[in-house]
């Protein structure tokens, strides 16, 4: 798909006023995203400032058959926004305005380059709540969140990005602009096309505006930290809490390797002989929170928690959450290369999956720290390795493959919140089956017949 002429010159002529960058020093910083190891130099980087500019880029791309990779802040963890050779990077970081907070309809409309944390703040300012909180929310863009259908720590109770998208403005391949969805809570007029674009990783169209649902914020919150000698007991606690008809907003765990790394790094007095630490949080109406917290405490003790602390105030709650909040930083410091995965299994298979990951680590002589969202079965096995050690990297690949196969065998999935991108496309068919991938290809073919939008991501062209 090599472009015949001078690409930047043609692009500038085709899209007057567009900011086009093509010097080597300008391209290298856009040759990767947040994913380890993957890198590819684009032919140009363009910064769109309006939907019209995005449309002009896609029109030019169709006319000239040049692939386009859309990008927000490039924090993705599956290579979804890694450039395509000879293609252009369409960066939306400069389309970052929050356009409207509508307190009557409980919605927020923003350009797709708006930072997730800015959306959270804007909602808070209006006395409302936007729950999805992906780990990179301080810099991730809402468009990227929608395109990857990002999750976060509150998934169990509040769901993921998809659950808050009411409408989207999308630029289609060729440059047409479409709005799908509206401010109506109920709307069954035809296919729900917006759902097609959520999690499509930039392969079906370019999201330029999002209309989000907001909810009233919880009035109270209670935080607890439980320590276990056995991962099984922590998992049983989680199952028992849910069986007791309590849906906590947070049920996060750290395994032994992660506990050790956190203690080495943050020195907060975690017990090094513990097998699991569980951070639990319930929020909502104050009286309900009190009752739920008391019940959760009782359940945790009944299921073998070695110790349990309950925060009396916000400062203590923050202190208890330190271990979980430091988990990724602590792991990332241990080795030159950190690979964060997100295999996910049904809740009741979680302890089994964690045990399997620990065995795989031993078998392949790898350091793997696992932490994550116990409430929704979303694990983050984190490989602490060195990309320059090719032999070890090979073992990492083999181990990863075994972990994904196991997750699927347990009724789980290869990715809970990071997306497929480049990193996991070889596992997709194994996870969802041939026909599902085939349908995805047909949809892609219908919306992007020339295969110009983020080609080669999620699955290979047929």
């Amino acid at each position, binding site marked *: 798909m090599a472009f015949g002429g001078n690409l930047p010159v043609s692009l500038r002529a085709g899209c007057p006023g567009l900011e086009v960058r093509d010097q080597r020093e300008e391209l290298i910083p856009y040759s*990767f995203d947040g994913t380890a190891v993957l890198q590819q130099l684009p032919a140009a980087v363009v910064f769109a400032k309006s939907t019209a500019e995005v449309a002009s880029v896609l029109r030019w791309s169709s006319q000239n058959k040049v692939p386009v990779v859309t990008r927000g802040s490039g924090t993705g963890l599956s290579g979804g926004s890694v450039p395509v050779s000879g293609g252009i990077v369409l960066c939306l970081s400069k389309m970052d305005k929050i356009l409207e907070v509508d307190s009557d309809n409980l919605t927020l409309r923003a350009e797709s380059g708006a930072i997730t944390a800015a959306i959270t703040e804007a909602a808070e300012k209006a006395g409302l709540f936007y729950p999805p909180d992906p780990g990179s929310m301080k810099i991730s863009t809402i468009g990227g969140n929608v395109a990857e259908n990002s999750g976060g720590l509150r998934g169990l109770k509040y769901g993921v990005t998809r659950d808050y998208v009411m409408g989207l403005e999308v630029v289609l391949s060729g440059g047409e602009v479409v709005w799908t969805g509206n401010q109506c809570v109920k709307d069954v007029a035809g296919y729900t096309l917006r759902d097609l674009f959520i999690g499509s990783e930039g392969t079906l169209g370019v999201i330029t505006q999002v209309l989000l649902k907001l909810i009233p914020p919880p009035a109270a919150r209670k935080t607890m930290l439980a320590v276990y000698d056995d991962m099984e007991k922590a998992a049983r606690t989680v199952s028992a809490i849910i069986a007791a008809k309590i849906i906590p907003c947070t049920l996060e765990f750290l395994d032994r390797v992660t506990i050790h790394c956190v203690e080495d790094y943050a020195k907060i007095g975690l017990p090094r002989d513990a097998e699991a630490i569980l951070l639990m949080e319930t929020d909502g109406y104050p009286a309900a929170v009190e009752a739920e917290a008391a019940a959760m405490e009782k359940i945790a003790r009944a299921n073998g928690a070695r110790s349990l602390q309950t925060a009396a105030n916000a400062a203590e709650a923050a202190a208890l959450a330190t271990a979980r909040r430091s988990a*990724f930083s602590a792991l990332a410091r241990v080795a030159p290369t950190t690979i964060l995965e997100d295999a996910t299994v049904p809740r009741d298979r979680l302890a089994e999956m964690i045990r399997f990951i620990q065995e795989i680590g031993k078998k392949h002589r790898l350091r793997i720290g696992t932490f994550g969202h116990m409430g929704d079965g979303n694990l983050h096995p984190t490989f602490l390795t060195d990309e320059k050690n090719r032999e070890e990297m090979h073992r990492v690949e083999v181990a990863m493959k075994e972990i994904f196969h196991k997750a699927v065998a347990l009724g789980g999935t290869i990715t809970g919140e990071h997306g497929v991108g480049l990193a996991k496309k070889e596992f997709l068919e194994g996870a969802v089956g041939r026909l599902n991938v085939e349908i995805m290809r047909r949809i892609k073919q219908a919306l992007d017949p020339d295969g110009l939008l983020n080609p080669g991501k999620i699955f290979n062209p047929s």
Partner: protein
Amino acid sequence: MSSGETLASLDYSILQQCMHCGMCLPTCPTYDATKNEQHSPRGRISLMRAIADGKLTPTQAFGKEMSYCLGCLACETACPAGVDYTHLFETARAEIEQAGALANPFRTFLRFLTLKFLFAHPRLLRWVGRLFWLYQISGTQALLRGLGLMRLFPERLRELEPMTPNIQKKFSPQLIQPLEKPKGSVRFRVALLTGCVQDLAFSDINRDTADVLLANGCEVVTPPVQPCCGSLHAHNGDPGTAEVLARKMIDLLDPFSLDAVITNAAGCGSHLKNYGRLLRADPRYAQRAGEWDRKVKDIHEWLVEVGFRAPRSEIREKVTYHEACHLCHGQKITQQPRQILRAIPGLELVELPESTWCCGSAGIYNITQPDTAAALRGRKIGHIESTGAGTVVTSNPGCHLQISTGLRLRGSTVRVSQPVSLLARAYRKELPGGRPPQGSAAGGARNVRALAG
């Protein structure tokens, strides 16, 4: 970094430590201003790595990019993986100078004048400082400004003139004896570093620092002539001179004979704690340099560590605190200056929005990148005014000057001071006639100590 080190010869794992997660982006003032990755820590590291990998050479564009970086180190605070950006930044700037990527005759002359001449010869620097003082005190400055004659000067000079610091009548050696003993028993023996800009523009703050140390039982050793710490050199691509100056400093003050080496300038302190890395390859100095790093203490850090005495007299003032980058990011000292301020009776401390965001001073950044520096200064002044405080305190001469200039240009009445000066003032007020205190007072004195952990 030691001289001769290049991006390619650097321990590769320092570059690799960046996992390009992007968490540094929202804390980087130049990314914030441009929304372009090239002007972000992650982008800059990717360029450095490309050079280390032989995929890019230290081009002029790379040189310009590294000049555009403030070196504020906010990215180090934000980095989950603990990337040593200081080391990378200094190595990159040194490589740019070695490659001559930005060289032109005027720049080369200026670099020689400042790095190799003025800031390598402390006596000469004081002499030049004296000339500036004459210019200011004689009325020449007022006359030029008053008659609008500055218009006759070249534009760059006109832009820089308002930033010239007010030079003090007396420099540090005229205010501080080489050895001063506290009144009571000696708890610690410490050296006081008087700095370069600090000495010319803020020798009174050095005096305040000595007073505060004396009031807390420290015997203070202050050599009248001290070399520049080399921070300016290390940050501006001259590691060779930085090493020479580090050796001179260690020769002057043997760290093994002192309980602490005290610095009150954040930019100096951040670099002074890096002598171990700078001289690690020098067998004659490596051990002493390691000890030196352990002994260097920022004044606030030291006061809280030894449990400073809370003053008894009041300072009724509403104060806000601007955190110098090289204190909060470079040395991770954030709570101690606040603890000192809160220990002063009557003082109301109001938090400054974006207190850790760079004010644009950034060493010589306000000279090399005046537009960005002015924008950052404006942002900072706006936040200071929003607090309603009558005084803003900070603890770095660069920030002090930058903020003073900003407030003056705005016609603001907000005063600029430093935590240690307010503490010294409170101690002085305890004494009849406000004489400098000597030794720690007895009876009912409350000691303030850092909370464990």
